């Protein structure tokens, strides 16, 4: 925990959640840990928005939830990417790539 963490830009939380879930079903804490690890601690998921986001995605049918047993033998709510969610992830990821490329191009302008 050294470098300053970045705040998530608006709207990217959904994308990150979907991406994290595309690898395997996970519970809420697992998602936040995974994102933190993979981003080398740069991205910190605001806990206050994680759960509302999960519930919103579930209502939209992009992820599904089920209760399972966690590694330490506790009952935990696992989220899984639904088919609609996978499609959503693809488009959102593509949009994100285009956006960052474009922004980078503009920034490199001399």
């Amino acid at each position, binding site marked *: 925990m050294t470098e300053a963490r970045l705040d998530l830009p608006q709207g990217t939380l959904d994308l990150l959640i979907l991406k994290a879930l595309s690898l395997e079903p996970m519970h809420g804490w697992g998602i936040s840990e995974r994102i933190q690890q993979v981003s080398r601690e740069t991205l910190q998921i605001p*806990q206050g928005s994680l759960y509302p986001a999960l519930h919103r995605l579930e*209502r939209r049918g992009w992820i599904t939830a089920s209760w399972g047993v966690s590694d330490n033998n506790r009952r935990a709510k696992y989220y899984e990417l639904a088919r609609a969610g996978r499609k959503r992830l693809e488009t959102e990821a593509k949009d994100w790539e285009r956006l960052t490329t474009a922004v980078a191009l503009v920034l490199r302008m001399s």
Partner: protein
Amino acid sequence: MLSRALSDIRYRLRALFSRASVEQELDDELRFHVEHEAAKHERQGMSPEAALRRARLEFGGIEQTKETSRDARGTARLESIARDLRYAARSLKSRPASTVTVIATLALGIGANTAIFTLVDALMLRPLPVPHPEQLVIVGDPAAVNENNVGSPTTDYVSFLLYRDVRARNTVFGDMYASGWSGPIDVKIGPSANATAEQPHARFVTGNFFSVLGVSAYAGRTFAAAEDETPGQDPVAVLTYDYWQRRFSGSRAAIGSVMRVNDVTVTIIGITPPGFGGDVVGQPVDFWLPMMMDPVIQPGMNLLDDRAWSWVVMMGRLRPGVTLEKARLEVSAIEANAIREHLSGRDLSQFEDGLEDTPIHVVSGARGFSERRAEYGKALWVLMAAVGLVILVVCANVSSLMLARTVARSREMTVRMTLGAGRGRLMQQMLVEGALLAIVSSVLGLFAAAWGSRVLLTTVSGSNTASPIAIDTAPDARVLAFTATLTLVCVLLFGLLPAFRATRVDLATSLRSQGRNLMGAARVGGGRIPFGRALVVAQIALAMLLLIAGGLLVRSMQQLLHSDIGVDRDHLVAVRVRTARSPYVGARLAQFRRDLADRVSRVPGVDAAAFADHGLFSGGLSGYYVNVSGFVPQADSERRVSVDRVGPNFFHAIGARLIRGRDIDRQDLETRPLGTVINETMAKRYFGARDPLGATATLGSVPYTIVGVVRDFQSRNVRGRPRREMYVAFNDPTTGESGQAKLSVHVRGDPSRLVEPIRHAIEEVDPTLPIVVDPVNDLVRGTVSQDMLLVQVTMFFCIATLILAALGLYGVTAYSTSQRTSEFGLRAALGAEPGEVTRMVLGEAVRVAIMGVVIGVPAGIAATRLIRAQLFGVGAIDLPSLSIAIVVLVTTAVVASYLPARRAAKVGPLEALRLE
């Protein structure tokens, strides 16, 4: 997209209905997160307590997260409504008496509206239950060629030959059919030869009737086109579903079996689908016969070949893409040409003139044919307006009840608003309560309406057994939509207003005044009492309006039932004997009429009996053109007269007054020229100051000598304006209506007592014929049955409104006196007599009532202009009924406020102190 919507709905439903478990899951999930986080910190070497504290800190507000998660579920609003619903149900259950009152009142209002609307819908609005009813078009007859027919001059009736011409030449319809009522028929069902004859309702229709309408058989088959080509060749019938159920218990074996219709054996080939009641709305039909069977089933009527007999209605189905306007243009031209070909001379010029005034009648047939629509339509709209007023009063009443309830809850409201509940939130809660009440009431109201509309219908039909009104009163989508809208309007009317008032609370004053209640007057929300009072004034004004209308209708009914119609109506009996398919034809029928009159006049209690072609209130009418010596007509229409053929002593028998000359006597039947009596109106028109006696009036080529002038009398309906009428000696057995013999009988005493003796006397002459004997007053009542219905139902609504207004006044008075207990105590302590307090409270109630009257009377007088067409013999302002209405209303007000006033007077100083 769809699956997303589904998942959305499923999610929200679960969130809504298994709220507890969803909340529990959220709780578990968040706790799991925090514990995991704490475990992570522990692994990094923190103490368990410090780790947990750190995890909690990092997570932030757990409750906040929960709230946002709930919002993300998208059910917050629904959940709050569900909470309000549970709350409303609890709060309504805790006050059963007032809840039952409100629900009963609302159910009455909604039920009455739905009942009347059901009838309006069934008779006036509902399209025929056939595919694409909007393509159907009715083609009628111009009034001008329609003198001798079975209907009134401006109906849809045409002659069968005209239908054939128009159909053959038509350019706009895919096809056209014709249908006509069969007239009275005798039907025998079952194998035994002496099965009793029944008189169901049948119509003759062309072979394409079902195919043009697009109705296919429910069982068996409908007519084939070939079954309507050769007269008398195809004795087949198609039954309605209802008749099949009623008469054949829905047995499949009925199809292929036979019935005898006027002694012709007819095979049943099919059943129409349930709900299809034919093309004539409001008139019963039991089965259909092919048009070409008419000459065998009704021999001698010659209905198919006579252009003078307008007895069928015709309907076409537009070709795709043809508009009604185009159809009107083309069909009118075609029909006019078809008519012209068969006219000549004066008839033709008269036809051309008439066509300019009343063009050929081409209108949408989507709702089918209906005479009932014209007959009852206006009355139904008047009733609709009346029940509209009733629902307004109901809403005002419920509104003040709700208001009283919210006043009682004002403390709760104040506290909740102080604690930060938004006004919208509180209003939502009150609206939810209103909606719950309204929905329960409207369901009850729907049941009440289904029952009510049936009762109304049987009441009307009861007075008219010959042709009951057959309409489907099962509620359809339109009725349900009407009720739903009405319910919504009610909720807004009675829920929103009190909600608005109750939440307009001035927090500071309100909180301060909550503890103390010194002078008693409700301080919370200041203007509440005047508002409640305004509602009562409105109720009384509306009740006044209805009472004025009801009073006028009752007075007009009295006039209709008891007015002088020019004959001795209280001592007259009308006799009809059906001679169709009997040996009595021609000269034998004439002799039979004479025999009947002779025999009946010998019955004890009978003064005189005379036969006539139409007689009194038989519904019959003949129109002719007359030539009167010495009178030069300016136009053909000036020659038009109504003609009846009468036997000896007819005017004596009906108690009409001869102004000049003499009655028709036996001599007139023999000597030529024949004698005739004319009425006053005819005498004035054609003779003016000249003496009509001895002058000649010629009908066709037959000259009649005028032997008498009779004072105008009504023989068909009470309301009509007197026409020019001519009563000629009934000597020619080939003229007049065949198949009937009619007598007018003058009796001493109560006519209904002589009905049976007269019937027995006729049975002595011939026991085999169907006989109908009615006191003339009953027939007169039959002609005003729709007025009677209007009066009865309006009176019912008047009484209901009056009771509601009384309840409203009682409620407000009782509430305001209970609020002023301490004031009354103070007055008592200062020496006021109990009578003074009573008078004061009563005085206030009467002031409210008088305000209502002052508003209601002009409104009522203005509104009753709309029902002027329904009135008979009373002006728009009828002082007797108006003063009775006012007295009734003010008396009701005094009675309603007497109890609370008594209670107020009994308040003693101590009682008032105890309240402090």
